């Protein structure tokens, strides 16, 4: 048995120059966690500001810079890389039964590119900040915003290349490096979802990159692109931005869905119900997801016809998500269910994602969106999906694979309490925002009419509970590293290839190249 990847060198250098996908995953884990707490700290600050209707804690400018930083960091530097770059990086080769990704050096390069993008973005924030919102709408961003818009756009631009490189790596790896016998029909669902995600990344990210570059061109060179005074059209920018940023929401949710499929199956000890439908729905979401971007623009001045088409398609994209929800539920049927920490997160995901997704239907319905667009209703919708859904699944995944990653088990009691605390705090934070939105409180408001105060206080209270909930894993997971490495190869009795090697895995992942002769999630073959 060869050395475990954690012991293959203990110097900083051996980490920073490693080409081992497992070590690179740990590098991402560190970076992404830091970004999450930076984004979270910004949220804490502006939630405190919103305790009272007046502008008292921070100035209007500071508030605007805070939510921009929050949105940009959380989306581009936390949630998009979180599951793919951390769990995906660690697990994809293990699940496929190969030694590493197709291009290990490219993988390391992605991390450096990502960090460079992060440095530029944080640099822009420290230098004075940006107040455009994460959507960078023109002409505000090109002609009116002062601040370091170009620098922050450059940071996202650079990070975009990192996503593209990772996506490329994943697609090629999935095509070329599957273990003998591991046909497409036997792939774990997490791999399917990573594959679908990577396709979206490859085809969508360039458009965002160009849109941001055009803002840079207009700001720096004074060359008009969207300038309405010369006949340019700000709505065009919105088309380009959302062509990427709507599919980007599926970049954030698909890997989460993959994680949940793995967890639910393992803890129900049953193959995922309707495997082919769940795998196919990932592809359907990826494809349909590219056809609905205009639902962010119903009142932007796009044509009535475009509005109708995008609304119709938005309802259709909801169907494959429903397929997933129902199939997960059906997976529990006739299973042998255990409620360990990862399972609690996964069930939390299903509930909160369903609520978030179903409120997406209000937004997809034209008449209603005209009322709730750009209000807190939208904020609540996407936090339900992204925080209640994707972050829950990410934490669930971390807990699920933690024994594999570290070789240790963590205190399960703490894990369960944290999961429950997060679930409760989450709902208290964001449920009131649905009501606020329908009442008509617009988003991006540092001060608001007093009648909205009660609901805002509830929301801030919830956020502080949520913050504590998030701090818990940050404490007990590292603490578990002091325990002995006694997790064993397969503590949960799961079926994936990653569970058929030591925990933590050796540098080459497997002592002998595995071959697969069983179907996916075949618990009887175990």
């Amino acid at each position, binding site marked *: 048995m060869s050395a475990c990847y954690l012991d293959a060198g203990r110097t900083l250098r051996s980490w920073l120059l490693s080409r081992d996908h497992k070590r690179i995953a740990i590098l991402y884990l560190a970076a992404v966690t830091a970004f999450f707490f930076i984004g979270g700290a910004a949220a804490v600050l502006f939630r405190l500001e919103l305790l009272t209707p007046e502008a008292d804690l921070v100035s209007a400018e500071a508030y605007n810079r805070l939510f921009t930083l929050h949105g940009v960091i959380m989306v581009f530097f936390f949630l998009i890389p979180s599951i793919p770059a951390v769990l995906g990086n660690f697990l994809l080769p293990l699940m496929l039964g190969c030694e590493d990704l197709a291009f290990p050096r490219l993988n390391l390069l992605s991390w450096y590119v990502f960090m460079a993008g992060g440095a530029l973005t944080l640099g822009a924030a420290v230098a004075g900040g940006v107040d455009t919102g994460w959507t960078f709408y023109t002409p505000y961003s090109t002609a009116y915003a002062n601040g370091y818009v170009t620098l922050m756009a450059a940071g996202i631009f650079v990070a975009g290349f990192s996503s593209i490189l990772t996506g490329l790596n994943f697609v090629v790896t999935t*095509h070329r490096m599957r273990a003998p016998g591991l046909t497409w029909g036997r792939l774990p669902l997490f791999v399917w979802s990573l594959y679908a995600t990577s*396709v979206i990344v490859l*085809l969508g990210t360039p*458009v965002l990159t160009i849109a941001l570059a055009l803002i840079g061109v207009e700001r720096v060179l004074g060359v008009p692109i969207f300038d*309405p*005074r010369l*006949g*340019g*059209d700000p*709505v*065009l920018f919105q*088309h*380009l931005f959302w*062509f990427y940023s709507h599919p980007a929401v599926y970049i954030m949710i698909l890997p989460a869905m993959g994680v949940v499929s793995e967890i639910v199956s393992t803890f129900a000890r049953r193959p995922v119900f309707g495997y082919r439908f769940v795998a196919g729905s990932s592809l359907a979401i990826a494809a349909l997801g*590219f*056809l609905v*971007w*205009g639902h962010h623009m119903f009142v932007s*001045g*796009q*044509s*009535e*016809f*475009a509005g109708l*088409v*995008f609304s119709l398609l938005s309802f259709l994209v909801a169907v494959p998500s429903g397929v997933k929800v129902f199939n997960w539920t059906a997976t529990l049927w006739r299973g042998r269910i255990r409620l360990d920490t990862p399972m609690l997160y996964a069930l939390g995901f299903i509930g909160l994602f369903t609520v978030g997704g179903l409120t997406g239907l209000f937004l997809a319905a034209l008449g209603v969106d005209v009322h709730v667009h750009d209000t807190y209703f939208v904020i609540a919708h996407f936090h339900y999906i992204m925080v209640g859904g994707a972050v829950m699944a990410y934490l669930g995944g971390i807990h699920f694979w933690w024994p594999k990653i570290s070789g240790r088990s963590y205190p399960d009691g703490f894990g369960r309490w944290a999961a429950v605390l997060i679930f409760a705090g989450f709902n208290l934070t964001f449920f009131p925002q649905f009501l606020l939105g329908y009442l008509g409180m617009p988003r991006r408001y540092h001060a608001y009419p007093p009648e909205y105060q009660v609901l805002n206080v509830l929301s801030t209270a919830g956020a502080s509970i949520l913050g504590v909930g998030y701090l818990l894993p940050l404490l007990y997971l590292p603490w578990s590293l002091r325990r002995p490495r006694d997790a064993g190869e397969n503590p949960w009795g799961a079926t994936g290839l990653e569970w058929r090697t030591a925990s933590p895995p050796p540098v080459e992942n497997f002592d002998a190249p595995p071959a697969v002769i069983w179907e996916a999630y075949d618990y009887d073959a175990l």
Partner: protein
Amino acid sequence: MKALLGTWLALLALLALTVALAGARLAPPAALAAALAAAAAKTALVLLIFMELGRSRWAQRLAAAASFLMMAILLLGALDDYWTRPEDAPPRAPAERVP
């Protein structure tokens, strides 16, 4: 090799044709259609013969097809907005403004 040369000649012929057509001052829709058709033909030649897409693996064809499909979606999705905006909606010149 012969096939390559033939392709090249065909490409140059198409080029000459479009340039000539541009000189012919066709009505804009016709000119647009002609220019785009010629470009599409050239693209097909380069893709199929120079880039050997005609003989390559399904995964490669899939990648090429996906990218073109996606570009078509982007174009159609964005342009249908412009095609169906009411007459007065295209960005207008900065004319009279109330205060």
